């Protein structure tokens, strides 16, 4: 009996090695095929990815909370140290903001009066879905994040994603409980924008750096560092008027934009939902102006 078991083992070992070898080659081929396939048939690859993402989102959600808590605690300590200076700054800001509130109220009243005169029907406010960033899936080649809201919450592909400061990106893949958000800095991100002051249109084109650049800006457009840019709503992908960033640098034939969103500290985002077949109206919900 012992002898037979031994001979079986002697036979089994080379077989196992051969199986392992061929499995390695087969799986290597399968992986290479998948890379090609994921480019050819994007929708099927996406569905498969989101199934896995759905399964892992609860775990990621749980694990990312302690990290967030620790960084909140550190922030708090920093803030405690600078509390007096911060207080002074806030007082100043408060005075300024009260003035702006006054202006806004007057403009609002005037706006309402004018709308009444014109019988203007205001576009509906978007429903927003709040979500937490649970996985920062950015690498040297991709700038995207996973959030813990999906089709169950009404998230759909193409929706704009914002945080308190401005535009974060757009939804590119949706699972039941998770969605992938392509950040505006990603090399595949193209967003129609306009210069807030001069109304010149251009395309904000990410290149995986922290500062995406403007393309197709008209030659006659005058830009200076500090100019704000907002989404134009052209192409129907994004609602118009979402704050995106400010012009950071104007170089030789190249304009770089500093996004308003701090992508290093992205924690909560809102996904704007204008209903299934909405013609995208101007964003009536916007972040505070500037940084």
């Amino acid at each position, binding site marked *: 009996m012992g002898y037979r078991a031994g001979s079986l083992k002697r036979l089994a070992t080379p077989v196992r090695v051969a199986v*392992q070898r061929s*499995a*390695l080659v087969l*799986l*290597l081929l*399968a*992986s*290479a*095929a*998948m*890379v090609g*396939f*994921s*480019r050819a048939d994007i929708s099927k*690859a996406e569905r*498969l*990815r989101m199934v*896995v*993402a759905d399964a*892992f989102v609860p*775990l*990621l959600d749980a*694990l*990312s909370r302690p*990290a*967030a808590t620790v*960084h909140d605690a550190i922030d708090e300590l920093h803030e405690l140290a600078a509390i007096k200076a911060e207080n002074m700054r806030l007082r100043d800001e408060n005075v300024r903001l009260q003035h702006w509130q006054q202006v806004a109220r007057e403009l609002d009243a005037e706006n309402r009066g004018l709308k009444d005169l014109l019988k203007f029907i205001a576009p509906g406010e978007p429903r927003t879905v709040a979500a937490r*960033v*649970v*996985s*920062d*899936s*950015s*690498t*040297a*080649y*991709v*700038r*995207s*994040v*996973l959030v813990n809201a999906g089709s169950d919450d009404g998230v759909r592909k193409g929706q704009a994603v914002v945080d308190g400061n401005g535009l974060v990106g757009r939804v590119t893949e949706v699972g039941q409980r998770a969605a*992938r958000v392509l950040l505006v800095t990603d*090399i*595949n991100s193209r967003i129609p924008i306009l210069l807030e002051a001069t109304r010149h249109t251009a395309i904000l084109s990410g*290149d*995986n*750096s*922290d500062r995406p650049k403007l393309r197709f800006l008209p030659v006659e457009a005058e830009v200076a560092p500090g100019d704000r840019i907002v989404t134009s709503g052209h192409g129907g992908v994004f609602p118009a008027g979402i704050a995106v960033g400010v012009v950071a640098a104007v170089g030789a034939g190249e304009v770089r934009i500093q996004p308003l969103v701090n*992508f*290093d*500290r*992205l*924690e909560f985002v809102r996904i704007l939902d204008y209903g299934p077949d909405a013609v995208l109206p101007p964003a009536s919900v916007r972040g505070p102006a500037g940084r």
Partner: protein
Amino acid sequence: MITFWQRVDHFVRHLSPFATTVLLVVLNAIPLPIPDYRTVVPLVPLMAIYYWAMYRPDLMPVLAVFIVGLLEDVLTGAPLGFNAFLFLATHGIVRSQRRFILGHGFFAIWAVFVVIVAGVGGLSWLVATILYQGAVPPAPAVAQLGLTLAVFPCVAWFLLKVQRTFLMRL
């Protein structure tokens, strides 16, 4: 006589290389509030693949490597199959050369990891350039590879602890 619980114990211990690798993949995907960390986050999962292929290839079947690769693809948003390919290639190369490398101590292991990381980095950059039809800035990738090499001894130390704790007698 092997009892039921001994079987369970045995099974769980055998699972530890795969489990630690999955754990590192998931931990690596968690957002940390460090400026620019996202773009240069070290390739920790690759270290685990490398380590287990080097020390316990018997407990890390190629199918497990494939699954870990796909998980990494999903969580990092890379094209599906991309990391699976890199991990499998790393696993295959290390597995075939491990007897030779293991004889030369930890510095040889680290040195070979440098070669693997350079290969993985070069291939990633090439594939990204082809997929995005244009040159991708190489600076973050270079920083990422440097950080990966620097962090390797720490991760290797952690995996060594795991190996000593769970797999001493296996």
